[in-house]
């Protein structure tokens, strides 16, 4: 029996099977400065970089129950940079002792015609928001401190209002599947940020 043609075989390996390890927490606005100071000291030595991103969440409602969700994100500070399309799978229900939330993650860079393309494919935009903040990195770990802003008029990113009086702090690592030492490193890093911010794994299903 001959092997099926290459186009039918699913793509495995490489960067497709990346898992995202995630820890989340939040700080109030008034505690932001001290957290940024601590992060500047702990993370790799470079100037902290600010970002302003506009994220759109698309849903594809099929006949089955769960809609398929894709996140499209573009940078407001670098308009010429490509869009970033992301798929996040369900959190892996592994052993409870794993310290971080693990889920399958597929990242793709896309050109500026992405929203039109998704609309043509049948996706409908569910909601959008603007995230502004700073990004730090320590080795493979990325710490994103962002303020989420609600977009009042769809498509208009100038008119925004903050969703809350706090900043969202996310510690994430992209690693191939099967590396559990990553969560240990993340946990020890999160320990160093206590008591300024408590990073823990938050199951998104529980929030729904």
């Amino acid at each position, binding site marked *: 029996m001959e092997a099926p043609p290459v186009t039918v075989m699913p793509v495995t390996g490489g960067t497709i099977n*990346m898992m995202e390890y995630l820890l989340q927490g939040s700080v109030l606005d008034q505690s932001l400065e001290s957290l940024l100071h601590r992060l500047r000291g702990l993370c*790799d*030595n*470079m100037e902290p*970089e600010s*970002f302003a*991103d506009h*994220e759109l969440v698309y849903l594809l409602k099929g006949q089955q129950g769960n809609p398929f969700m894709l*996140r499209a*994100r*573009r*940078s407001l*500070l*670098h308009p010429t*940079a*490509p*869009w*970033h399309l*992301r798929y996040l799978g369900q959190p892996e229900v592994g052993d409870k002792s794993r310290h971080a939330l693990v889920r399958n993650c597929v*990242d*793709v*860079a*896309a*050109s*500026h015609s992405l929203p039109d393309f998704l609309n043509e494919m049948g996706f409908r935009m569910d909601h959008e928001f603007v*995230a502004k*903040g700073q*990004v730090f*990195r320590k*080795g*493979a770990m*990325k710490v*994103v401190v*962002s303020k989420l802003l609600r977009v009042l008029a769809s498509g208009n990113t100038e008119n925004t209002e903050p969703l809350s009086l706090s900043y969202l702090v996310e510690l994430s690592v*992209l690693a191939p599947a099967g590396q559990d030492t990553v969560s240990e490193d993340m946990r020890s890093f999160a320990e160093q940020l206590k008591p300024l911010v408590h990073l823990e794994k938050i199951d998104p299903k529980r929030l729904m």
Partner: protein
Amino acid sequence: MGAVRIRSCFLQLIAQVQEVSLDGLETYVPLLSMSQNLAKLAQRIDFNQSSDSDEDGPERESREPWGKPEPEEDEGTVKFQPSLWPWDSVRNNLRSALTEMCVLHDVLSVLKDKKYMALDPVSQDPALTKTPQVFQLISKKKSLATAAQLLLKGAEKLTKSLAENQEQRRQRDFNSELLRLRSQWKLRKVGHKILGDLSYRSAGSLFPHHGTFEVIKNTDIDLDKKVPDDYCPLNVQIPSDLEGSAYIKVSIQKQSADIGDLGTVSLFRRQPKAKPGSQMWHLKLEAAQNVLLCKEIFAQLSREAVQIKSQIPHIVVKNQIISQPFPGLQLSISLCHSTGEKKSQRASPDKSKPDDHLYVLEHNLHQLIREVHTMPHPASSPFGHKRLRLAGPMAYDKAEISSLQQSEGLLEKIIKQAKHIFLRSRTARTIDSLASRIEDPQIQAHWSNINSVYESSVKVLITSQGYEQICKSIQLQLNIGVEQIRVVHRDGRVITLSHQEQELQDFLLSQMSQHQVHAVQQLAKVMGWHVLSFSNHVGLGPIESIGNASAITVASPSGEHAISVRNGPESGCKVLVQFPRNQAKELPKSDAVQDARWTHLRGPYREVHCGRMEGRNFVYKMELLMAALSPCP
């Protein structure tokens, strides 16, 4: 006494003789009856006398009966009034005693009431409580001794604590030393141990060495002996493979005669001079970090040496990388790691010359082990090369992606730099050798101070001495690259020369010969002579092996004389002067030309022996020639 008493008792029983009559009849005193005797005895009781006169009592009793019959002999001790009844005195005494007792009883009963009378103790007469002086002295001495002992104990404690403080300050106890260590190095506590990190991981290095050192307490100190000055209560234990010191030795060696040996230099060898306050652990840690740096650089270089493909493959042998940037040139990079136990005598103490380009090499090596991070925009994108993310949207093909991904390795950069350095030094040497060998014309080289690691430039001027302002047509700008030299001529020509030394030399020689001819051209303008013909590359005459010969013909202002100059790099210069016909020695008579005025035309040529002419350089000689051929008005 007993005998006296018995006598007295006997006397009472025997009647006493009162008188003895003349007839011898004794008259006895009538014996007292019992009651009379008792009365008599009662009278004798003296209530005032104390009991110690008890013994004398019976004697007085015995005396008193003698006194009774003789009342006149009463000399005073006892008054005896026989008229009263014998119990009277007794009664009086008793009555007085009763009175006394009543008074006492009254006083006591009044006292018991405590309303009208109270009892107070009477202060003792101090004279009564006077203790002997010896006892006082002893007690004072004892109390003083106790007080002194307390004070001494306290003082001893104070001095001990003071001494301890001073000792501690001098010894800089473990905790304060640990604080100093922590201010300069990264430490963390794992269980009971304190570990530190001396690797370059936080700077972005990906070398797989763990680079952890352990901090241990230095307890092998003998407190009895004097503490040495460099004693430190803290000691660090570095991994065994990082002990000692290491440096990287880069050397470029010649293999053939014409290429010079560019020498050897040691990188990262600086012995950090110990500051007076720095501790031993600091030096140790710095040395270990240096060793780690050298190892990492060498590992990276050897990895690339094996991976990259070049025309002449690189050789990696143990701790040495040998490569040949140019044929005949050998570049060797070796890692020298000495553990410090044995000092190798063969290592020559070469002092690194302050060659600025080799410091640039070291600086580059420092920079190359750090990766410059770029943050992704938008922030949710994974880390990675910024331009590679465009590969998808921009639909790059394989060639573009591979060109993006190919980044120059460390070794390649080093080899390129080495090539450039070598090429530059050889160019300099070529120019200098030519300049020293050839005096006419002169070569001037102006090297640019600001260069890059892969490119330098030099401006070469070929001039004649004394005529710099006139003859400045040959100006060359040489851009020395990694493998080639690009020459930009003043007239706009661009010529690319290879790394061969001979090419440059030949080129410069040809330029110098061209310069001579150009100089004559400029000189003619100044002197008022007319240029009749000029050619940079003449096709006539002997063939030059280097370049081409150039020639010029100039005519005097009056037109009578003309000078022809032909200059070639190999054949040298040839000067011919054309005279008017009437100056020629033998004139060919011709029937066609009859008029005398035709004799003023130029005719035959005569060669000039430049070597025998006066003048320090060619242009000067030409000037003299021109001056000689122009008649003064």
